[in-house]
């Protein structure tokens, strides 16, 4: 199954869009008509064919364009990719994980050949053919985490575990929903979630931490998270907030269907074999309201979720300025009929 890679942009003229097939496989995050935090973690098992969870690492039609956007972000701000020195073993673990998964599930696009520690990696969509020695940083053109994550969709944090705590000690973060790796690197689980409203008081953070400390190798887990973005902009970093924040004021009743995007993160966690660190992958999918309402159940349900969202959550997610207009738009696509349980289209 060869993927047709699109040529599109996530900035300036914003030519990003989803094909009808991409809309059908969008990871819609609401399984009922309301939203509240939950420790919604499940085993990262293969999902239905062609879905975003069919394979542990999902490569889709946006791959080549996303990798080009990542390169642009790094060119402007190299601090989006950082690793504390003790994370080098985890970086190599990540190289192995991503190269194995990508070559196994997309053999027509990627291949990995191993002869002991002499490896050869071929990435056809990006035109890369690299011989290197596994474990020898000098044989790659970038540090290991940077090398492999410049070639894989999604952000990646490498999380160390010590003293019964998790520590955000490395990452490639170029498509984030408004958090700063440069500020948070070196923080504990509790510290980096400090600004999240309500969740600490609900005990969600403590329960999720306990779960993650017990994460087993070979048994990855996943969850969905969501926010909304104006224009299909991947780089909504705080670093560039003074450049993209103004977008939030440009929504009008005429353009709301085109400008407002639901942004869903498929987050997965893997225990790594050599370092015992955890990979936290954050794969972002975006869909504009006009595309979303082509699935009647989703248009109906998102209307109800947004309409009834608690104000402090709307504020934290940055929706306040355009929420009413979006609810009005979606109301036109809500006939009041009941929605069926679960995430998938009817």
């Amino acid at each position, binding site marked *: 199954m060869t993927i047709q890679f699109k040529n599109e942009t996530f900035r300036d003229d914003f030519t990003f869009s989803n094909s009808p097939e991409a809309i059908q496989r969008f990871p819609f995050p609401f399984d009922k008509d309301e939203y509240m935090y939950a420790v919604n973690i499940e085993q990262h098992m293969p999902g239905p064919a062609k879905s975003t969870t069919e394979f542990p690492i999902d490569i889709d039609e946006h791959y080549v364009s996303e990798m080009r956007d990542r390169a642009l972000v790094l060119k402007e701000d190299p601090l989006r990719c950082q690793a504390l020195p003790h994370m080098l073993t985890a970086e190599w673990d990540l190289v192995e994980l991503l190269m194995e998964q990508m070559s196994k599930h997309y053999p027509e696009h990627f291949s990995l050949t191993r002869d002991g520690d002499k490896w050869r990696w071929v990435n056809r969509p990006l035109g890369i053919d690299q011989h290197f020695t596994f474990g020898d940083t000098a044989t790659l053109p970038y540090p290991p985490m940077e090398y492999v994550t410049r070639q894989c969709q999604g952000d990646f944090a490498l999380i160390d575990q010590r003293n019964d705590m998790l520590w955000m000690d490395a990452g490639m973060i170029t498509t984030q929903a408004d958090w700063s790796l440069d500020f948070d690197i070196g923080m504990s689980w509790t*510290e980096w979630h*400090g600004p999240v409203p309500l969740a600490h008081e609900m005990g969600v953070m403590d329960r999720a931490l306990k779960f993650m400390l017990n994460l087993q190798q070979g048994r990855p887990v996943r969850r969905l998270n969501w926010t909304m973005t104006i224009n299909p902009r991947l780089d909504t970093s705080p670093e560039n907030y003074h450049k993209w924040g103004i977008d939030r004021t440009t929504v009008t009743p005429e353009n709301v269907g085109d400008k407002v995007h639901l942004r869903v993160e498929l987050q997965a966690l893997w225990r790594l074999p050599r370092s015992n660190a955890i990979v936290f992958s954050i794969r972002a999918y975006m869909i504009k309201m006009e595309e979303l309402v082509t699935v009647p159940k989703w248009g109906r349900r998102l209307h109800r979720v947004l309409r009834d969202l608690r104000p402090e959550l709307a504020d934290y997610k940055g929706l306040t300025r355009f929420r009413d207009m979006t609810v009005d738009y979606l109301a036109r696509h809500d006939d009041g009929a009941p929605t069926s349980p679960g995430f998938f289209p009817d």
Partner: protein
Amino acid sequence: MLVSNIKSRPVYGGLKVDVAARRHLVAAEGEGALAVIDAFGAHPEALARTTLLYAAGGSAGEDHAARLAAFRPDDLFVMPSQPTLITRLNVILNTATMGTRLYAAGVEGFIGSVVAAGMAHGVDQASIRTEHRGSLARRVQCVHCKGMTENVTVSPVTCSHCGIPLLVRDHYSRRLGAFQGVSIDAETPGDVPPAEELYA
């Protein structure tokens, strides 16, 4: 003592002398001298094994340096500023040996700098004994240009490097020893609310 519900902010447990330490390495700033005097005044036997670094800062008129000198620690470095003190501290940490206990006392930005220096030399941050004294002024990192603005008592504050008006967020990085500053008028260019004195 700072009391706060900011999850990312460290808790400062106070300068308790570790009687088992073979070497005491103490960094103090301004009113932090009083914390040192309180803690080591109760353990005079520890002073012969103590290296003390002090920068008077805004407390220069109080003459805390003379009181520290009267303690007769094994080594006393009175430094003209926080940055010069941290430079000297880094040199000492470079050759520090097992059994050295690191202490920090003063304003929050200073403690953060000392802890960051310790961590860079492999000292576990949880093992560093710290005490907050003096102003609640914050050290603020501009998330946009990464410049540090010192002694911030108001929000919003203008970044001293790139000039962007910053909302001072209640999110603290131990590694940077700083709070996060984020553009306050990104969604309303030019509309900056008056600065409020919040952290005097």
